[in-house]
């Protein structure tokens, strides 16, 4: 019982919060703060129970599995932190009650998805999550049709693919129970296997922005308030990963349909490469992060697609990690937007001096994103490569490597374009973000740091959740990674080594000639002997990776989006033409009646 209660409580609280905001803003904020605290506290203390009831002749079942609770941790933590972050971030905006109503509805929807043990309730919560996120995507009121409706349409395509799968599964197996479906999947005919799994995969691929169904994502991520995008990209897209993992492992890997798993992995790799390339050329920090998210989700799909133990472990680890670092990055972008009102690289520079805490959180996240030691990103990357190596995916690994190398480009672009470069007077009034916005970022940064050396903290949960997927006794150690060939890396040694050397040299370099070190402004630079005038700014922000663009532009001009758009337009035009059937002349309508009658006679003659 307690399972469904928590969801209903969240929904109820959402409505209460809405009412509270109608009464008083402070009261509303208190409500938001309360749920942000209560959510993790409740989640980590309650005892799960299964619950089921009948609706419309269908049995709805609820209860966490060991697998779904892994994602629930992410949702709860990220949800709580983004809620906290939202309080100052959204404070100046209107319609806050509406915002938090949908915010809490999408958190409730996500938890509901993870709690659902049957497809119908999964779908219901899936749709609740979808429309509540849609309402937040259009919350700003900008580009509501271009971005919002597009998001809704792609989501609907995915959701309806799922719905089709659900009704078919219900027909074939007589029940919509998820685990029953997995258990009996092997008995299905080949056509049924392929159709149902592909439909489900489509549904989940849309949410996790797998190419070629990613089209909605960059704009939707950009258009919603950053405090929500943290959750959107960090946790909500993971619902797609959650489902995709189930499909890829339970259906493809465990029943010998490896081919589809491979296809998924390839799609993921292509997504990773192309999305990364697009991220490199973005001029808006939010879009950059959005494309980067898509790319990271591609990695996860690769891990799930190859379906080996290490691969799944890598995918799940990255899924959690991505929630953390992309959460931080979107929050950082939000903090920048909050303080400067700008998100375009051409308008931002030098914020490191004004927002150091934001910078360091973002730096930590970027290092994790790029996969460099000493942070946890390395572990996820390492696991993926080892998984690909030991399962002999020669070319897939090259694609992944290309993508993660190219990722350095946008990582640098993000840090440089926003925080570094030549300072200008226009940032003099900028202050560090409010404390309540910094706290979530800093907390998550610490999380990343801790996981960088002690990934076992999460491996514990991952291994128990992988037993649900059929990988029994996954071995893991607190800070040692082992691949299938027995090669190990010792994270403690690596990280200690790095940090000790770093610290030693830090002391040396700080002490040497300490007094004579001149601190100068960024306009005091070597410039062929010419001093830079006060009104000039040499910050490098235009055509950032022009040479790289020249190299890869032949590939980039083919965009699936144009194809989709012309397809949609084609449908519109077709029906536009069809509208002429309704001529407006009553006599024509009468003529239709006569014609229809004639046809009906002809058809009727064959009636039995």
């Amino acid at each position: 019982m307690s399972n469904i209660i928590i969801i209903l409580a969240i929904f109820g609280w959402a409505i209460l919060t809405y009412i509270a905001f109608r009464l008083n803003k402070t009261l509303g904020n208190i409500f938001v703060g309360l749920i942000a605290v209560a959510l993790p506290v409740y989640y980590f203390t309650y005892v799960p129970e299964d619950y089921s009831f009948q609706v419309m002749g269908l049995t709805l079942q609820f209860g966490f599995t060991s697998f779904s609770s892994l994602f629930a941790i992410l949702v709860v933590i990220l949800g709580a932190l983004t809620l906290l972050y939202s309080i100052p971030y959204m404070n100046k905006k209107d319609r806050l009650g509406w915002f938090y109503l949908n915010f809490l509805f999408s958190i409730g929807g996500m938890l509901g998805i993870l709690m659902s043990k049957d497809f119908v309730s999964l779908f219901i919560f899936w749709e609740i999550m979808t429309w509540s996120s849609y309402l937040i995507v259009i919350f700003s009121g900008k580009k509501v049709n271009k971005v919002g409706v597009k998001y809704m349409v792609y989501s609907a395509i995915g959701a309806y693919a799922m719905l089709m799968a659900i009704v078919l599964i219900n027909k074939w197996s007589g029940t919509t129970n998820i685990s029953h479906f997995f258990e009996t999947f092997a008995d299905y005919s080949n056509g049924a296997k392929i159709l149902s799994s592909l439909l489900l995969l489509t549904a989940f691929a849309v949410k996790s922005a797998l190419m070629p169904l990613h089209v909605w994502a960059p704009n939707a991520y950009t258009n919603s308030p950053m405090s929500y995008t943290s959750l959107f990209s960090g946790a909500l897209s993971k619902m797609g990963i959650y489902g995709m993992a189930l499909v890829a492992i339970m259906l493809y890997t465990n029943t010998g349909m490896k081919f589809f798993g491979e296809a998924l992995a390839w799609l993921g790799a292509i997504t990773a490469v192309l999305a990364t390339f697009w991220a490199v050329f973005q001029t808006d920090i939010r879009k950059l992060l959005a494309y980067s998210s898509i790319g990271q989700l591609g990695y996860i799909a690769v891990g799930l697609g190859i379906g080996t133990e290490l691969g799944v472990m890598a995918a799940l680890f990255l899924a959690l990690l991505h929630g953390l670092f992309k959460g931080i990055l979107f929050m950082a972008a939000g903090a920048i937007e909050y303080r400067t009102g700008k998100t375009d690289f051409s308008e931002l520079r030098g914020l490191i001096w004004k927002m150091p805490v934001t910078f360091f959180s973002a730096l930590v996240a970027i290092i994790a994103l790029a996969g460099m030691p000493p942070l946890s990103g390395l572990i996820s990357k390492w696991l993926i490569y080892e998984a690909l190596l030991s399962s002999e995916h020669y070319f897939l690994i090259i694609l992944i490597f290309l993508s993660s190398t190219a990722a350095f480009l946008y990582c640098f672009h993000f840090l440089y374009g926003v925080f570094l470069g030549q300072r200008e007077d226009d940032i003099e009034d900028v202050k560090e973000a409010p404390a309540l916005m910094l706290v979530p970022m800093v907390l998550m940064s610490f999380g990343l740091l801790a996981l960088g050396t002690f990934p076992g903290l999460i491996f514990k949960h991952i291994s128990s959740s992988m037993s649900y997927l059929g990988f029994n006794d996954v071995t893991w150690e607190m800070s040692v990674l082992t691949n299938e060939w027995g090669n190990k890396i010792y994270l403690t040694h690596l990280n200690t080594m790095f940090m000790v050397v770093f610290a030693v040299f830090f002391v040396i370099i700080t002490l040497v000639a300490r007094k004579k070190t001149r601190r100068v402004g960024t306009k005091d630079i070597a410039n062929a002997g010419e001093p830079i005038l006060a009104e000039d700014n040499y910050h490098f922000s235009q055509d950032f990776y022009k040479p790289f663009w020249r190299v890869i532009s032949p590939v980039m001009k083919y965009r699936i989006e144009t194809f989709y758009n012309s397809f949609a337009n084609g449908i519109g035009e077709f029906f536009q033409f069809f509208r002429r059937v309704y001529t407006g002349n009553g006599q024509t309508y009468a003529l239709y009646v006569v014609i229809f009658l004639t046809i009906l006679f002809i058809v009727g003659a064959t009636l039995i």
Partner: protein
Amino acid sequence: MTEELMQQILKISFYGASLALILIGLYGVLTKKNLIKILLSMAIAESGLNLLFVAIGYIMNGTAPIFSTAVLDENNQLLETVTMVDPIPQALVLTAIVIGLGVTAVGLALVIRLYKHHNTINIDEIRNLKW
């Protein structure tokens, strides 16, 4: 024998006439551009239909379906059967006529309204609502 033949011929001519009326009406509705003519064509088709209905219930030499005097013997048996036409079609046709009248009346009212609004009663020119 001849009576039966007569009855058949009569029925067929009734049917033919009513069918012709219906077709005339249909033709008028579909080709005439004048709203009033369209309405009249509809009325014609309807009367054709009513004729058909009555014709179905018609029995030759039948009387009106009204119980006036029943000639009974002492055992309350009918001595003489009176051939009556089927009463139900007549009742129904009466209703149908009334309905047709109503439709025509409403239609004419609408024509007046349309004429005031559009200054024409050509159906091809009254096409503000389309697509």
